[in-house]
């Protein structure tokens, strides 16, 4: 088990349906996490009790988005981003699309 130190843990309840959870961990350097940073940006559908959008990072995919949740957990799309900041920007863009699409 890789030791992880949490650097960021923030949650925002957007509506009855949606909640966002942002987490960043510092982890030991490994093949899976060569940059020592593990991120998890999630948009949760609280009513359906499923994640709707998840961006995380690990080898061999790098930063990637699971956008076909909850139907296909193995579906990943690699993101053309270079770091966690750009990944966060992409997360917010996609999250807003989902949230506003449902309003």
């Amino acid at each position: 088990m890789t030791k992880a130190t949490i650097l960021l843990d923030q949650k925002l309840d957007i509506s009855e349906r949606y909640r966002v959870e942002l987490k960043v961990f510092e982890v030991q350097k490994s093949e899976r996490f060569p940059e020592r940073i593990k991120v998890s940006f999630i948009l949760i559908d609280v009513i359906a009790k499923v994640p709707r959008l998840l961006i995380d990072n690990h080898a061999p995919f790098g930063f990637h988005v699971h956008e076909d949740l909850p139907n296909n957990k193995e579906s990943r799309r690699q993101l053309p981003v270079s770091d966690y900041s750009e990944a966060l920007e992409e997360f917010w863009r996609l999250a807003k699309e989902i949230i506003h699409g449902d309003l």
Partner: protein
Amino acid sequence: MVTFKPLKVTFDSLDSFISKSRQDIQKAVQEKKKSVQKKNVLVWASVESYQQFMSDQKYTILAAIYKFHPQSVYQLAKILNRAQQNVARDCDLLEGHGFIKFAESLQGRKGKSPQLAFDYNAIMVCLPNVTYKVEFADAA
């Protein structure tokens, strides 16, 4: 001796939260300045969405959990004299938004007991210009 703290509900607009998250992630990764939300604080994106969510029935559920420590949603529904299905739905939403958690029931039967997310006895709602507190002892 259990110390009770109120659960605080604060408000931050989506755009403001996004802006802060950009800054906080930079500080967290580059300067190792941690940004960890306290467990007794829940942040909602708007007062309206919180008020739409937090009905009197949900407040009553929280107060009943605080006062009666039900061992199951079934027991909770009995206490509240409400349909179990409706109480279960409200409990799922309260769990999803961080107000309660489900723990293994102390009674041998299968099922989970609804518990407050931590030991709190009131909800303090921090509106932009005024703060008010709902004490469970008064509500139950």
